[in-house]
């Protein structure tokens, strides 16, 4: 299921060019903002369709391409976690606890952090809210590889555009 970087890149470029052409880019009446949205949408769709329906995140992204702001649960989760860590530090400082109790507290703080951070990760991966832990991490690995390809190609296009717009000698 894991494709090499170059194969994924070719798939992405192919799909992205198709998408950009469909956007009718030569329409001069597009505002910069509309153009930017079209570019991002076509890039995200190309990134997802390059996976050919093999991953959950790509199917989720194609069905809901407009993922706006990060949900507030993220901030709430990190604030709640900070409270729990502070509370456990206060418990540790009241040094009546023995070593075993301290280990127990450390373990539960670690488990709490893992749970909260897993929630945050779920909010970042398209379709993540529906995944179990194993699926989430597998999807994350694939999603990160695809995001890197997307950034790579977009960067190349940006520098090619800059070169093309430079005056010819």
């Amino acid at each position, binding site marked *: 299921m894991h494709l090499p970087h170059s194969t994924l*890149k070719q798939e992405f*470029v192919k799909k992205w*060019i198709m998408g*950009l052409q469909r956007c009718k*880019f*030569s329409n001069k009446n*597009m505002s*910069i*903002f509309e*153009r*930017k*949205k079209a*570019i*991002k949408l076509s*890039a*995200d769709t190309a990134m997802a369709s390059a996976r050919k329906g093999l991953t959950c995140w790509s199917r989720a992204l194609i069905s809901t391409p407009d993922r706006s702001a990060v949900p507030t649960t993220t901030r709430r989760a990190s604030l709640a976690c900070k409270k729990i860590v502070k509370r456990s530090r206060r418990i540790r400082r009241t040094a009546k606890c023995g070593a075993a109790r301290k280990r127990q507290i450390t373990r539960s703080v*670690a*488990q709490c*952090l*893992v*749970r909260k*951070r*897993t*929630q*945050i*990760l779920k909010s*970042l*991966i398209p379709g993540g809210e529906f995944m179990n*832990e*194993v699926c989430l*991490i*597998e999807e*994350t*690995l694939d*999603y*990160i*590889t695809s*995001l*890197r390809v*997307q*950034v790579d*190609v*977009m*960067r*190349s*296009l*940006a520098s*090619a*555009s*800059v070169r*093309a*717009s430079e005056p010819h000698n």
Partner: protein
Amino acid sequence: MSGRRSRSKQSSVSSITDDQITDLVSKLQHLIPELRRRRFDKVSTSKVLQETCNYIRSLHREVEDLSDRLSQLLASTDSDSDQAAIIRSLLMQ
């Protein structure tokens, strides 16, 4: 609620799932540039998750910035032939 779920999972499912998760988390560690230098150290799961989230957010930001730049660059190329040349150069990589 997720706490209850994970506790019951640990009692009913064997340690194969734990190993699976450990293996996946180490794969994640190798993928993230921040943590790749610490390849031979043991990094905690919560730290790996934290750095993963930070990395994904930074990639999302980069895509946003590149979309901005591209929208300005492509707006300034007047002719279709220029744009075709750009896309052709992309294909030749």
